[in-house]
């Protein structure tokens, strides 16, 4: 098979994108890694807690350290990493439209495109949510852990999934107070070990509770909370007020599918994985065969699963470009898939495993 000389273009240098690029380069395939930020690593640099998983998933290592390691690895391999480069368009013929440093727009023709564009944070609207001081959890994480700035002194966290609980812990670590973590559902969402460490720091966690209003003139001064009924509607008479100067919203993530949609990838609605996401097969190929989707764009999970998905796609793309024979591709992906399976178990993981199986089946049905 003749080897493809046009590069594989990886969009997004988070854990999934870095791993995809590393596998491509390792196989000798030409690869370009583009990221809109001035630092690669994606969300890893906001993750300062030790990761779960096993040793082969880098368990016990802090997210930003994994980011540094992946970066070092990609630099050692000589991967062409273009930072400050926003990919703003993509067409079905794999023409990538990029803007460098917000100053120079150019197009390039890729032979494969691996989309590792991550996810966008969801919002929950309430009167006053446009006030200064209301922000997404990711915004607070970026400010605290990347830029070392405290976005509030006394903070309410809305949402008790892992992101909400982790941001509460990070706020405490940065010296803020957390007035409460609230959750509209009857049960807290995040890992019990995460909630327990935040709770023992004295942070109240309130289930069946919602925010009905934020008040203040030039910024948040108070949050008004209320209990909710079985239909998530506030129960009259249960209102209470918390004095806070910031509110962090951690109410889930939605795959960032814009580029995939522009490329013509078919999407599928999977609530467990964050909503509309591109269909993909076991090698992370979308319905457009030369376009792969990895990490949160392919269903919101965790950095550890994102890395394995990136590897799967990188290995398969290298094979499809003529840089790895089938046997070697299968050998390398078998390991990856075993590790991925290990991560998708237990009360939290199994649901995602089942949902992913549905995605694969749908892909098989829609584009055999």
């Amino acid at each position, binding site marked *: 098979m003749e080897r*493809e*000389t*046009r*590069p594989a273009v990886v969009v997004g240098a988070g854990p999934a994108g870095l791993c995809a690029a590393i596998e491509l380069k390792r196989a000798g395939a030409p690869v*370009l890694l583009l990221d*809109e930020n001035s630092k690669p690593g994606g969300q890893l640099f906001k993750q300062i807690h030790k990761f779960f998983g096993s040793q082969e998933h880098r368990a016990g290592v802090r997210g930003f350290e994994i980011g540094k390691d992946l970066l070092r690895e990609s630099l050692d391999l000589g991967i062409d990493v273009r930072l400050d480069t*926003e*990919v*703003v*368009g*993509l067409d079905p013929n794999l023409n990538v*439209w*990029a*803007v460098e440093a*917000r*100053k*120079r*727009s*150019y*197009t*390039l*023709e890729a*032979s494969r495109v691996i989309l590792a564009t991550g996810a*966008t944070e*969801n*919002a929950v*609207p*309430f*009167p*006053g*949510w*446009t006030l200064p001081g209301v922000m997404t959890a990711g915004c607070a994480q970026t400010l605290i852990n990347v830029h070392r700035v405290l976005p509030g002194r006394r903070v309410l966290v809305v949402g008790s999934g892992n992101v909400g609980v982790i941001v509460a812990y990070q706020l405490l670590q940065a010296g803020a107070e957390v007035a409460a973590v609230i959750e509209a559902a009857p049960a807290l969402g995040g890992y019990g070990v995460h909630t327990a460490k935040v709770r023992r720091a004295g942070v109240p966690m309130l289930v069946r509770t919602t925010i009905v*209003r934020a*008040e203040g003139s030039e910024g948040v001064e108070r949050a008004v909370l209320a209990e909710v009924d079985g239909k998530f509607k506030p129960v009259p008479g249960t209102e209470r007020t918390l004095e806070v100067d910031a509110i962090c919203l951690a109410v889930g993530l*939605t795959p960032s*599918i*814009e*580029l995939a*949609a*522009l490329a013509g990838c078919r*999407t599928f*609605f999977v*609530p467990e994985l964050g*909503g*509309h996401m591109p269909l993909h097969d076991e090698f992370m190929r979308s319905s457009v065969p030369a376009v792969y989707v990895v990490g949160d764009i392919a269903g919101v999970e965790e950095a550890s699963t994102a890395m394995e998905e990136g590897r799967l796609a990188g290995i398969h793309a290298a094979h499809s470009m003529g840089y790895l024979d089938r046997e070697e591709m299968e050998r390398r992906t078998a390991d990856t898939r075993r590790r991925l399976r290990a991560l998708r178990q237990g009360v939290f993981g199994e649901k995602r495993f089942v949902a992913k199986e549905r995605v694969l089946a749908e892909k098989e049905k829609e584009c055999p």
Partner: protein
Amino acid sequence: MDRDENYICRCEEVTEDEIRTAIRGGARSVKEIKRWTRSGMGICQGRTCRRLVERILAEELGLAPGEVESSSFRPPVRPVSLDSMDGSRDPSTHGSGG
């Protein structure tokens, strides 16, 4: 600001009431709501409000969230300065194939 005003589209300051009114007036898709109310027409192009509008639409029409048709997307997916548009191809990767 009215303290009970619930904005859905932060960019264009479109309220929940305006969106529900549009749906009750006959708008049945995210696209139509967008055109009638400007929700999602602002500088972020619906990146924050799109899902919220889909949810309200599902609620008003009695649909499951997945049954609301997903919105369409247009490039660019980030704001781009006019000055940056020299339109050239990237010389370093312009392969012969293709």
